């Protein structure tokens, strides 16, 4: 039964742009999928190991800038730049992890915030490298053919398929993690870090590994962001707001679950973007409200609660 639903979901994922082809909806679906990747990325660290990071935009920004700079200065096409961006993000996660994991709980959260701000300010000032507040712009994406036809980058559909593949990869990675020792060890750390140490878990190593994997996907999403929006600047990609949104998507969707980030993205991004279309500003009000409701009434997230409810039905 479960396999049928998953197969159906994957079919829908790839068939969607044919079913709903209006540009606004394709854009909406792209945003939902991009935020699924970001939520999944945060979930790998925050959900599984219980380390709440408020600075994940660091990795998104690192991926975005890597992709942009590789393309604009070295002519490396974004579809190579995106995974490289992910790797760069995963690499900078190592020193960040070793520094910040000396702290626990809310102090860890604050330290990640500080690191993110420091990096944003560096990006803002290192103009020779990042162009500073002016930002970086892609005017034309490279010509490329796929299946015999030249890709039309003015159409949103090619972007949809790129992010769909990335989102699928993020979800599969989360699933694999949950089935292996890394996932199990992460849950132990989340539950009781001293007990985890007592049974032979190297908690620093495990957390850094989770952070690196998490950073990889945030970086990949960042690279996609750069390619899709074609413009980035430090305040856009290294912002506290982005970090916070990632947290909200993961928490509201359901921590430690595999599908949680997808559900969280569907709920929050759909409402948010629709709200933004009507009211133009203040769409994050919905995020704030949902977070408060989730912490108070649905600590396991929307998907977490649905799962319990569905489980009870059988």
């Amino acid at each position, binding site marked *: 039964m479960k396999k049928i639903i998953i197969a159906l979901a994957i079919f829908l994922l790839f068939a969607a742009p044919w079913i709903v082809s209006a540009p606004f909806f394709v854009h909406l679906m792209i945003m939902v999928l991009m935020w699924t990747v970001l939520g999944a990325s945060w979930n790998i660290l925050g959900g599984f190991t219980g380390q709440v990071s408020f600075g994940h935009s660091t990795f998104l920004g690192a991926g975005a800038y890597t992709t942009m700079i590789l393309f604009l200065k070295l002519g490396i096409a974004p579809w190579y730049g995106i995974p490289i961006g992910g790797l760069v993000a995963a690499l900078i996660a190592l020193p960040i992890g070793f520094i910040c994991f000396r702290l626990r709980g809310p102090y860890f959260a604050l330290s990640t915030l500080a690191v993110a701000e420091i990096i944003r300010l560096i990006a803002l000032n290192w103009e020779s490298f990042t162009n500073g507040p002016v930002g970086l712009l892609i005017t034309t994406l490279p010509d490329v053919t796929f299946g015999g036809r030249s890709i039309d980058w003015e159409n949103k559909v090619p972007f949809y398929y790129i992010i769909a593949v990335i989102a699928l990869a993020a979800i599969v990675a989360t699933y694999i993690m949950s089935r292996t*020792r890394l996932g199990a060890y992460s849950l132990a750390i989340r539950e009781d870090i001293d007990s985890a140490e007592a049974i032979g*878990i190297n908690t620093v190593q495990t957390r850094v590994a989770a952070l690196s994997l998490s950073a990889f996907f945030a970086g990949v999403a960042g690279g996609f962001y750069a390619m899709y929006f074609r413009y980035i600047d430090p305040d856009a990609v290294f912002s506290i707001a982005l970090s916070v949104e990632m947290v909200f998507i993961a928490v509201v969707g359901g921590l430690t679950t595999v599908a949680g980030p997808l559900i969280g993205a569907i709920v929050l991004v759909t409402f948010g973007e629709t709200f933004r279309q009507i009211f133009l500003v203040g769409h994050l009000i919905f995020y704030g409200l949902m977070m408060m409701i989730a912490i108070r009434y649905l600590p396991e997230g929307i998907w977490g609660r649905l799962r319990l409810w569905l489980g009870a039905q059988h």
Partner: protein
Amino acid sequence: MALLTVKGLTKYFGGLRAVHDLSFEVQPGEILGLIGPNGAGKTTAFNLIAGFIHPTRGQILLDGEGIAGMKPYAVTRKGIARTFQIVKPFKKLTVLENVTLAAFLRFPSRGEAEAEARRVLERMGLGSKISALAVDLTLSEQKRLEIARALATQPKLLLLDEPMGGLNATEIEQASILVRDICKGGVTIIWVEHVLKAIMNSSNRVIVINQGEKIADASPGEIVENPQVIAAYLGTKKR
């Protein structure tokens, strides 16, 4: 050769002297009891051996290899496992998951780790509870879970921190049998305990600690006759 050798172990917390010049040996296959009045430094000694705190001075040798200053997970990997005085199970995980996590240390694949966990849980009498959440167990069951988790790391030396605390007479009897069984299975044991009857009946040797210092190291029979020990527990009569 002794399995564990502790030499001149000393720990100061700021100006507070918790453990002072503690030295003893533990032979493979024995059950060593560690007793003493409250605040004597017993749990501190455990924390030092298990790596949760680091000594101010002194050596700790496992099979001749120095382990003082190692992190707790490294000490566990070397073969010392411990339980906590106030049990710390992974509350929201099942009994099986709790022990599987520990088994992962020696069995990296999930299938093998789970199988080992089941074996240990059967031995500990928790076979019927493997799907229960740790938080839903009784205290006696949680204590057995704690020990099962420690055993799943295949330790040479097991440190039991007051395993009898909060148990009734029947449960204490069962726990004593369990401790002896574990030792017969090849694990050396050091246990801290306040339930004197249990520890005297099951230990090969007993060490008494008072105010951070060792005041006696002998068989249970000799310990109960030792005037210094009696004085430490009951105080001396004022004339």
